[in-house]
């Protein structure tokens, strides 16, 4: 499951997509919009995507995870449009047979998404706005 959603993300459905009796470890990473940046209050975030490119790149990351950690299952959803602070902007669920691989694969998923997937974020403050670039981790 790889989705861009203009609206609240359904964590339960994303988790369910990777949960099977074969997958003894499931991790759900949730990225939540922050209400502050360097002392400024963030009133809203706005995400936009190159839709086809973002879905393609998320699928590619999922395939990489399945190759590096055989048997892993992956689901990713990212929000687009306006998001108030405190809500989920991205949810990545990974299921593996055992926990060690699950932690590694989950981390790989979010780091690669932030580095590669063509999604852009604008932070709107009480007194201005700025487009945020992800820095290399």
């Amino acid at each position, binding site marked *: 499951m790889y989705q861009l959603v203009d609206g609240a993300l359904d964590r339960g459905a994303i988790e369910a997509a990777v949960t099977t009796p074969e997958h003894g470890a499931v991790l759900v990473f949730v990225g939540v919009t922050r209400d502050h940046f360097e002392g400024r209050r963030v009133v809203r975030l706005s995400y936009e995507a*190159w839709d086809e490119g*973002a879905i393609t790149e998320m699928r590619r990351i999922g395939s990489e995870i399945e190759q590096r950690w055989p048997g892993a299952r992956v689901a990713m959803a990212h929000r687009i449009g306006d998001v108030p602070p405190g809500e989920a902007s991205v949810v990545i669920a990974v299921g593996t047979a055992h926990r060690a691989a699950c932690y590694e694969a989950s981390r790989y998923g979010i780091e690669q998404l932030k580095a590669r997937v063509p999604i852009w974020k604008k932070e709107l403050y009480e007194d201005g706005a700025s487009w945020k670039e992800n820095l290399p981790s």
Partner: protein
Amino acid sequence: MRISVRYFAMLRERRGAPSEVVVVAPGATVGSLYADLFPEPRPRVGFVVRGEVAPADAPLADGDEVLFLPPVGGG
């Protein structure tokens, strides 16, 4: 040559539209088109031509679709 161009994020705001059709001279590359459209170009902008990531010197052909991708900020 007519090229359709799509913009995202700050590039979209700067052009004032998510897409447009521009006319370029034969011999233009995706990089030269970018420099024409954005006289103060941002670093680290990626190019997509006909659906594939392309280097700045990728030649353009009539009817091509070009995307300019600013540094990403998802998550």
